[in-house]
């Protein structure tokens, strides 16, 4: 192996260690008895007491429930809007407003969140003044804000999936007399379904995790989970947050494991189908 390859491999291993040490440290210290978080109390650990504290914390549970509801609605709406935008950008060729649409779907991805958050709140205030809706800020304004930045990511995912294969299938269906809606339902939708699924998951995660934009457009009584976590950790480390992190990591890891197994299964089934089809043609 060349020295270049060796250097890159060592860098990869060290980089992965760098990425995972903080996560592992949270998991380990979630079982620590000491309040001091980073000092391991060997005599009384491991303990589940922070998990018990967490389960009894109404504030955290309530915020988590609000975050889940907002994330489900935002991700679903973002998938609908993002799929429409992705279709238009990938399939419609040049049209009026195309450059504008393309620009407005990529800009939110890099836009600093404080700027997006401020501008959205000022919009909601101005709308409230002008048309009397929304009345104040809360779960509704948070959801509207989340849909907006999530749909940008969905658009990119759907658009790149559509760009990955040509239009001949759709054109063939059209030539055979299928109406546009039928072509979409029978050809395009099944093809982009994986992109829609991963777009939904991405949007859900982004919404569930967002703090900065949410802080701007949230009101009293609409504290999401990241807002509660931030207000807790801003003034020092609290061990029950480690327990919360561990639970969230466990859920994500399980989800990824299930989806990996499912995709493997689907792929294997498709390969088998292809082999069967080839055999049938002989």
């Amino acid at each position: 192996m060349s020295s270049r390859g060796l250097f890159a491999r060592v860098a990869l291993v060290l980089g992965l260690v760098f990425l995972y040490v903080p996560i592992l440290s949270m998991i380990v210290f979630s079982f620590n008895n000491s309040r001091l978080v980073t000092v391991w109390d060997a005599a009384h650990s491991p303990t589940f007491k922070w998990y018990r504290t967490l389960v009894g914390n109404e504030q955290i549970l309530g915020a988590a429930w609000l975050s889940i509801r907002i994330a489900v609605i935002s991700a679903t709406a973002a998938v609908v809007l993002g799929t429409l935008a992705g279709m238009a950008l990938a399939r419609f060729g040049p049209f009026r407003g195309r450059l504008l649409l393309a620009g407005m779907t990529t800009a939110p991805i890099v836009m600093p969140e404080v700027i997006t958050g401020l501008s959205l709140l000022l919009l909601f205030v101005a709308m409230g003044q002008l048309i009397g809706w929304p009345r104040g800020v809360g779960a509704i304004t948070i959801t509207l804000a989340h849909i907006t930045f999530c749909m940008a990511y969905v658009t990119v995912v759907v658009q790149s999936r559509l760009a990955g294969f040509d239009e001949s299938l759709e054109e063939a269906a059209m030539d055979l007399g299928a109406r546009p809606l039928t072509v979409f339902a029978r050809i395009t939708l099944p093809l982009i379904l994986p992109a829609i699924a991963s777009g939904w998951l991405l949007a859900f995660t982004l919404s569930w995790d967002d703090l900065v934009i949410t802080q701007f457009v949230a009101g009293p009584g609409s504290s999401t989970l990241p807002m509660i976590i931030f207000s807790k950790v801003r003034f020092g480390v609290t061990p029950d947050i480690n327990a919360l992190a561990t639970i969230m990591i466990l859920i994500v890891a399980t989800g990824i494991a299930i989806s990996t197994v499912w995709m493997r299964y689907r792929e294997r089934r498709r390969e088998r189908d292809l082999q069967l089809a080839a055999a049938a043609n002989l």
Partner: protein
Amino acid sequence: MVRLTQSAGRRLVAGIPLLWLLLLFLVPFLIVFRISFSEVRLAIPPYTPLITWHQGTPTLAVHTSAYSFLFTDPLYISSYLYSLKVAAVSTLCCLLIGYPMAYAIARARPANRAVLLMLIVLPFWTSFLLRVYAWIGLLKNNGVINNVLLHLGVIHQPLTLLQTDFAVYIGIVYSYLPFMILPLYTNLEKHDPTLLEAAADLGARPLRAFLAVTLPQSLPGILAGSLLVFIPAVGEYVIPTLLGRTDQLMIGRVLSDEFFENRDWPVASAVAILALLLLVVPIILFQRLERRELETGS
């Protein structure tokens, strides 16, 4: 008839997201722009109106006091410069760490690539806030890193790691590293290995072949990754608030404090507009790269 409904359908497909983004992405910026040219007043909303009426005639009231305020108080200029510095250093560190990692993944056996990529992306699926928070526990005076170093006898007094520039660099590099690695990987994976073989056959040493062949070809990936890190890092709020210095704020924190603590909407808006002006060139550059990437179908 089919043509007609088809074009109406198309208009709907493109029109709905366009309208949504116009209303919730573009119009808000215009409102920020407009409020940056007003003054604070004790009212709801807490800024002066753009048009005032004097005996039936409208007068345009444009105030530039928010901007002149930003340029007279050195606090603001220094936060802009500090934010640019922090973002630039962090981007460079991300590139230096991320490039070899992306290279190693692109050269790994195809079966291993998917697993390695998943390992890079996996932290991204867990809460960003919690991952930044984890570094408080590692960097504190009585935190894990200091404890280990003290135990090993490398140091005799705990190092001050938290609330330093170093902590902010660590936090940004840690959180944004996947955004650097992924575009670099997509680029490096497409390289033709026979070019390197040709360079070697012509007598180029590995380092020279890398500098002459691989590096220039990977420039689009480097640029895309760097912009994906640099632009949001300039406005970063969570990382400097949790890990950073208290005597030198970044611009995202300044904006948020102006809005929430001082309730000065015009100054907060002016801070946002100036930050956008600094970032407009990188953002346009990023959009062009992104569009080329999406439209060539890779």
